[in-house]
């Protein structure tokens, strides 16, 4: 199980839920599980969001493995100047 924390405005798509445990072995699986649970969140997941797995931020990393017992934050993407 990964401990998932939803950052920022995402809770408006989850009925206020900001933290939950989900079994997922990759970012893609995580997104699929989250979409099942919160259909409104689905469309926002693949674009415009980043995933931090145990502190390391990934953008555009659907295939990134999620280790057992890791902490996953879902947060807005970062660009820069």
């Amino acid at each position, binding site marked *: 199980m990964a401990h998932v*924390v939803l*950052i*920022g*405005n995402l809770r*408006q798509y989850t009925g206020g839920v900001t933290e939950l445990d989900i079994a997922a072995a990759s970012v893609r699986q995580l997104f699929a599980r989250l979409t099942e649970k919160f259909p409104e969140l689905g469309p926002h997941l693949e*674009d*415009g969001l980043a995933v*931090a797995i*145990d*502190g*390391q*931020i*990934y*953008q*555009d*990393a659907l295939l*990134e493995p999620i280790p057992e017992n890791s*902490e996953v*934050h879902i*947060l*807005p*993407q*970062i*660009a*820069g*100047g």
Partner: protein
Amino acid sequence: MQERVKKDPEREFRVVGTRPIRPDGADKVTGRAKFGADFKMAGQLVGKVLRSPHAHARIKGIDVSKAAVLPGVKAIVTRDDFKDQGSEFVPAGEMLVNYRDVVRNVLAREKALFEGHPIAAVAATSEKIAREALRLIKVDYEVLPHVLDAVEAMKPDAPVLHEDMITAGVTPPPTKASNVAKRIEFVMGDIQKGFKDADVIVEREFNTKPVHQGYIEPHAVVASVSEDGSAEVWVTTQGHWIVRAHCARLLGWDISKIRVTASEIGGGFGGKTVVYLEPLALALSKKARKPVKMVMNREEVFRASGPTSGANIWVKIGAKKDGRIVAGEAILKYQAGAFQGSPVQPGCMCAFAPYDLENVKVVGYDVVTNRPKVAAYRAPGGPISEYAVESVVDEIAEQLGLDPIEMRLKNAAKEGTKAAYGPKFGPIGLVEGLEAAKGSPHWNAPLGKNQGRGIAAGFWFNIGGETTVSLQLNEDGTLSLMAGTPDVGGLRASLSMMAAEELGVDVAKVRPIIADTSSLGYNFLTGGSRSTFSSGMATVEAARAMIKEACVRASKLWEIPLDAVTWEDGKVRPAGDNAGKHEAMDLGDIAKIAGKTGGPIVGYSAITAHGAAPSFGVHIADAEVDPETGKTTITRYTVIQDAGKAVHPAYVEGQFQGGAAQGIGWALNEEYIYDDNGRLENPGFLDYRMPVASDLPMIDTIIVEVPNPRHPYGVRGVGETPIVPPMAAIAAAVKRASGVRFFELPMSPPKILAGMKAVKANGGAKATT
């Protein structure tokens, strides 16, 4: 003064960390380097843009009939030449872009939304004719009331820019359109409880003005569409793949038809990450069936490109008597300009990032106003929110009688700290930076009369992203390196150094170029301090792929197993008992046999670079304030920042110094000034006051190196963080020099003088805006 502070015993580098002359240097000191406006095609036309004189106006009609028949006019485009795009955020590269807005920013459709908004474009045989043609285009405007300021634009009776814009991020969604595009919120812990535990609470409101990236080279493009519909574009940009994507989308063409070559780029700082002229030049060229060159003048650059947001920021911080921060709260209102998409989101995430906090709440508003749409500017969003937070931290330290460095050390984020925006930090160098500041000669030097010293910390995330590098082993053993992230300040030097390091060759043997979009795989743009990190990572991977192939060739030639071959000190060597005796081969030897042993050798890396690590900076500023005129002079300045690993330290220092200089301009004199009609009053370098050489002292640097474990050489991006701390550091210095704390940027002389007089009138001590 240049210094370096290293954390760990590091890998012994041979090339990385030295200061060779950049490979593109000779062309740049002899005037031969070709920048955006230096390219010329035979038969090219001159393209010019007609711009709105009004800040807000409905466009009832555009009559180009007179201009169209002017001899020498070859093409005119207006809104009718571009298909409208739906309102939908789609990824373009890694950026989220709403093409509904992009198409309207390139050419106004229903309304002109800012002074300078493009209305039409003309291609003619000369600049004179093109200008005359612009005068002949008649536009029927219905002038509307305008709004320039975020706070004003949020009021219920403010003129609304987009009649269909409903604030996102609010439940239930509002029923009425407004200028607030989005409300965002970041919450951690329990803010109420935090403030209850506080011994001291300081709450302040700040205002900042929009500032422009100020690159010296105006936007420029040459586009040529050939008879078969394929197009060549030569352009000054931070991301030519992004230019290609936007143009293809706006024009409805296949991406493969457009080949974009990035010229040398004369500064960008985030401002050259969007398209302005490029789609117009392509559309004009297609109509005219000739190449079209378009160059903005300085006025156009100021009126219609960039800048970054002006903002209103409210910050409240609570701390214990010992300086430990127990709660931080902020509300950020950022001007987006005419279309949504201010950097308020990263502003929210950066606000408290330097600190280890349990209870944080940040709310942000993205607000449209009748100004040019903001573009990214160095650490977009961060400098504004961190200026406000750092200023309040400084004030609390002062109230508690704490040294401002000690106050920050007490709260500094370190490895394992949960960042104020959620995830835990990996290894970071903030504590090392603060310690270096504390021990620096600058921090411990005496001050003169009317002088004060300030310090502030700053943070930026840094990013990776899609990156391709190709490394070719030439017949003579030299190497050609193709990268795709435009070189804004020494990238080619760093990449050739990393290739040389990995391959064990002399750096002069590696010739790097920035390839065009048809010659190399996709590259996201130069931005987010990613180019040395990402293209560096891809370069090392490409070099390793080349080494692997060299080993394969040697094993075949020597007829020994691949695992009996090793790469050491720049040579393929037989290794182990079964390897036999063979003469070691360097890349030159391998190059000679390449064709006969399987073909040319190319190392290639096409990756989405992950593992970018944040860079923290600490700046020390000394300011002298003339008590009679309010004029501030920066008398001494030191930048301390974590680079992970400085590949070419001179260019790392250059980033530190350049960011600091821009921050000094932002703090003291740079601002957009509008008249009552919403027209920009200072669209030139005379009255948009960027620092000149005589305004600045030498800028000392201390490079901290806490390696980024996710980069093969430990590299962190360094370009953006240096613009984050200056405003707060200078505000703190001005406070100590003048006795007055200011909450508004720029801290220009009339404001400072008025502030000092007000304090005198009040009998001292009271803070003022």
